[in-house]
């Protein structure tokens, strides 16, 4: 609703300009080709143009702006990770988020709501304390709290969860937020477009030319372009693109599903996540409950929905909130999550010179959009790995130096 109102405002104050230009045809050569016009790809293009003066950039997408996981996630933003490198990275992202609406002059409906990761077992309590301690050490506002604090923040919750999984505590993360996901892509897209970046929608990459170990050009459904630098930011489509350049990665693709209720008057202020019950839920500005669960249990490279997902999630929602029995689920959907073995992304340079990866975003990519744009644009522009993403290199697997996020592998990413 609010977004709609905003648009009116823009319309009434400015002559109506296009948010993004639609170039008639593909150029012959670009300094950088970004594959994927989602939040990550557009953010990288935006910062390439804004911060690094690289303006001959083409962003290609087989579909449309923000049509992949950018538009399918449940929009949770947080930085309460387990490893120092993870926390530092996501914390940088959270601070970038704060000014994004001003940068774009676009309301992203960024809403700091506080984020509770519920612990139902003593081992979960231990993990929450671990995360809280690492977060605090790095100046991130996280705290292990008891059930009474959960009750204070969400007075309606059944702390017993129907008797199945009593809540023993929670990791409270004060900066936890939600935002209007589509607007993030549009904001970056507009900013990039204004700075000369070309966004080509409905332009599918069909091949990448590599000669003597370095990128030469990109074949698309709308013709060939030559370029020496390609940034791949395509989430669940990553393996298809890395396959084109002959790179093997640990990325595997499982669907992640979500569902949304009919709108109701707001009653749920914070964002709640339960690892044991496989639930995450927040209430949007429209009054809808936006709900997700854990990853689907096996590989599927499509966005099909399952009934099992809604059944399981509904049962667990009612464990936590029995009074929602009459609330109706409006819609379900799915995205393709590009998972990695250690629940951390794969970013930076690759064995193919000029081919850069921003991938492995699994179920946790939305929150990192700004910092990915920042770090990847730096890495692409300078061909030097940005400090914040060193731990996320593709080569870490071969070196058996997985990130510690795997240490407490659980849902809730």
């Amino acid at each position, binding site marked *: 609703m609010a977004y709609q109102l905003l648009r009116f405002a823009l319309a009434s104050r400015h002559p109506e300009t296009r948010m993004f*230009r639609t170039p008639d045809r593909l150029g012959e050569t670009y300094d950088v080709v970004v594959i994927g016009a989602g939040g990550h790809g557009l953010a990288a293009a935006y910062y390439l143009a804004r911060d690094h003066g690289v303006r001959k950039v083409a962003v290609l997408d087989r579909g449309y702006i923000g049509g992949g996981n950018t538009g399918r996630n449940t929009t949770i933003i947080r930085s309460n990770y387990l490893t120092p490198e993870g926390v530092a990275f996501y914390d940088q992202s959270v601070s970038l988020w704060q000014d994004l609406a001003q940068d774009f002059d676009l309301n992203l409906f960024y809403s700091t709501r506080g984020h509770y990761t519920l612990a139902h077992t003593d081992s979960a309590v*231990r993990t929450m304390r671990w995360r809280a301690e690492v977060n605090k050490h790095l100046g991130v506002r996280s705290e292990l709290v008891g059930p009474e604090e959960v009750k204070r923040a969400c007075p309606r919750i059944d702390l017993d969860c129907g008797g199945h999984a009593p809540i023993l505590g929670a990791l409270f993360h004060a900066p936890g937020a939600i935002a209007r996901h589509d607007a993030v892509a549009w904001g970056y897209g507009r900013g990039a477009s204004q700075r000369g970046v070309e966004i080509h929608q409905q332009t599918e990459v069909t091949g990448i030319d590599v000669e003597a170990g370095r990128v030469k050009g990109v074949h698309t459904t709308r013709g060939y372009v030559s370029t020496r630098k390609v940034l791949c930011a395509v989430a669940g489509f990553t393996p298809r693109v890395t396959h084109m350049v002959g790179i093997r990665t640990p990325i595997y693709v499982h669907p992640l599903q979500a569902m949304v209720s009919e709108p109701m008057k707001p009653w749920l202020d914070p964002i709640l996540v339960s690892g044991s019950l496989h639930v995450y839920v927040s209430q949007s500005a429209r009054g809808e409950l936006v709900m997700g669960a854990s990853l689907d249990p096996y590989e599927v490279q499509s966005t099909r929905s399952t009934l099992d997902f809604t059944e399981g999630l509904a049962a667990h929602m009612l464990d936590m909130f029995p009074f929602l*029995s*009459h609330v109706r689920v409006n819609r379900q959907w799915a995205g393709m999550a590009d998972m990695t073995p250690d629940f951390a992304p794969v970013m930076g340079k690759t064995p193919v010179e000029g081919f850069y990866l921003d991938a492995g975003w699994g179920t946790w990519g939305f929150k990192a959009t700004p910092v990915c744009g920042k770090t990847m644009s730096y890495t692409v522009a300078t061909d030097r790995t940005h400090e914040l993403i060193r731990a996320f290199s593709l080569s870490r697997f071969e070196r058996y130096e997985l990130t510690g996020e795997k240490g407490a592998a659980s849902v809730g990413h």
Partner: protein
Amino acid sequence: MTARLPVVEGEWIDRSRGVPFTFDGQRFEGYAGDVPASALWAAGVRVLGRSFKYHRPRGVLSFANHDVNTLMQAGARLNFRADVEGLEPGMALTAVNTAGTAARDGLRILDRLSAFLPVGFYYKAFHRPKGLAPFWENVFRRVTGLGRVDFSTPRLATPKRYDFADVLVVGAGPSGLRAALRAGQAGARVVLVDENARIGGSLGYQRGGERRSRDTLVELEAAIAALPNVSVRPGTLAAGWYADHWVPLVDASRMTKLRAKAVVVAQGVFEQPAVFRNNDIPGVMLASAAQRLMYRYAVKPMHVALVLTANAEGYRAALDLLANGVEVAAVVDLRQRADDEAAEAAVIARGVRVLHGHCVFEAEARADRLVAARVCPLDDSGEPRTSHAIHVACDGILMSVGWAPAAALLYQSGCVMRYDTAVEQFVPAKLAPGVFAAGRVNGVHDLEARLLDGERAGAEAAAWAGFHTDPVPAVPGLTSTPSHPWPIVGHPGGKNFVDFDEDLQVRDFLDAAQEGFDNIELLKRFTTVGMGPSQGKHSNMNAIRILARIRGQSPGEVGTTTARPFFHPVPLSHLAGRGFTARRETPVHERHERLGAAWMQAGIWLRPEYYREADRPKAECVRAEIRAVRSGVGLIDVGTLGKMELHGPDAAAFLERLYTGRFAGLKVGMSRYGLMTDETGVVIDDGVIARLADEHFYFTTTTTGAAAVYCEAQRWNAIWKLRVGLVNVTGAFAAVNLAGPRSRTVLARLGTQDLSRDAFPYLGVRETEVGGIPARVMRVGFVGELGYEIHVPAQYGACLWDRLMEAGREFDIRPFGVEAQRALRLEKGHVIIGQDTDGLTTADEAGLGWAVRMEKPFFVGKRSLEIIRKRGARQTLVGFELDPGSSAVPLECHLVIRDGEIAGRVTSVLESETLGRTVGLVFVRPELAKEGTRLEIRVDGGAIVAATVVRTPFYDPDGARQEPEHE
């Protein structure tokens, strides 16, 4: 004042049963069979709700379950769909999303806010200045949303059902009825569902003032009722299509999950609104809504109607109005020429004025009620000539300008749709295997053709399901075009609504496209068209038409958005059902209960954390349990451990591959610690492996690891093909650990086994009897005392427990729980996999390198460990002792800090009464692992406490207490 008609043949209401209810505090009475909207309309109520965004007054639109404007609060039921859900006696209904009542809504948000902020600035102020954003957000959270949750609502445990059918027919209109009949006649088991309270679909209400369709319905109903293999289920929603024809059928009381061999989708079409200024005023409705009002609920929809049409159905609707005493002021036809002359002639014959090539330019309201329409001729380019406007007084406008297929289930099944300009509608181009479409959803509109199309689809579906039927002749072609390609009239004043859920006007689409949101997906996301409760049922088609015109494309080129489940919203209670949570109890569970166990969850198991004693805090109870084990004898239920039985000539070889240690040389009657790593070299499980015979092993796994270890072990052997049989006997055995210096004495009283050191050494295993129960007894040392793990068939578990407790009574035997066990093993320096290790820990890092035998040719994880050993450990698990007199005791997962950096993490900690000091295990960087290294640990509140790295075990480092001499 009532607008009830005299009895209408086929009406759904029961006039003998009045149903009193209230709406916004006012009392009304309807009939059984009414929906709230029909009863209110009959009572002359015109404002049934307010729109989502602008809080405009709204009445009925469709009576087809997409009237978001008639969502109501019905007690605890929120967003009650008053256009389709049954009226119940005593209902207290209120409009949602209003401050006050629907008629007097105080919440006119735009008016209010614009009073102190100019409109443009107000929107910008949302995000700028930044500091104000949270304020605006709170304002919005107060006014957003529709219904209100009643927090006293109990969890509804709505049971689910399962069902099967050869052919599922969705939609019981003419084509669906005929499809079900035909498939049923072929012998198929047919389930026919329809979301409406009664079957018949449009046969019941699109009568064109004649008897024919009604008679057809009666005939079909009778024919189907005669078939016992056809189950007819009205009031049942097919909420979605999922893979393998798995369809949730949702009715008022439950969800039935049905699997069909074939599915016939005969859900018909949604009538689409015409778009003109004020097309949302109460009194403007779809023609089908007026027909439903008359023929289902016997309610006169208006006194004087104007029918805006572009197809034959509009004329037929006019005839229906006339047949029920409604005056028709005019039929306004967007087309220059009607293509069904018979219907037009019949209307004209009744003296009705027909205006071809005209449109309704705007509707006019007074006091929230429709009073007139401004009708304009259309010029050659299809634009209204406002200079020639005519004023037509009316209190109702029927819109009959076209249809959109109810194709959600088809889309979900993977059907490819194409736009057919002959019908100006999307129709199936390529259906998914086993899915069939019939009737109007298939682009077939004439009644006779729909019946025939149903017949064809029913025959095809039956054949697909394996029932022979004769082929059905092809369906005749169209006689008219049912939908108008452009039922949209611009107006400088706007308020010409495309999406009634979201209050979207034509201008919104033009603006959105101009800003670059000019493909259908972006348009949907930017405008939110189709994202409200009715999910685009009345709005998507017009949005596509508008976008197509903007882009100069056909609707087919623009394409549609994806129709995801659910078809209509489904309550969480129905989806959740009763809810099942797996929970396991050991055979001794009830004994623990009696002993006052405080329960904790261990995976899906329940285990006693400790045993409660009156007036004693938990810590004291646990200490008492520890003392009992250290000084006397204690008994713990370890029946949750995974238990595996392994037989076969290659059994030892199998274990050598599965575990890191050596087992080929393990003597019969002895056991050994087993450590398991995954292929990346990470520790995943451990247990005790006992050799009962040359080719027979019995081994345990962790409680939570049992299922995964069993599964993985089986997979490995599917690859290795060793000659072994592996059985998971976790549930078949009960197990207890009898531990403490007195354990031998207690056990000796119950058995014949020689328990002397030589006859039954540490780590020995004996198959014997305990208290007359056949048992496997293992001498173990997990808690650091002389101890016996006794495994017996599950049915004897409670009996074994009783006998041990009885035999131990004179030694004050005490049951102990998980908490005491954790403390005891920590004193002994034993690691718990999962607590003292994490998802990246290697055996070396956990100090378990001694259990890894790299000289073996192969074990799972070996190759990775070789690589990791070259790299070196990143952390090392060591023991620590807290400085005496420390201000606080660290907790598990508190961090070790060195030079301002994180240098480690506590994994286990205990204020040990036994040792008289606080000890624990801690991961530290390898350079800090040396004995005597000083550590600084940050505790709650940020204080630092000091500790020293010490060697483990903390307790009884020589293991002397594990021998019987210590009794």
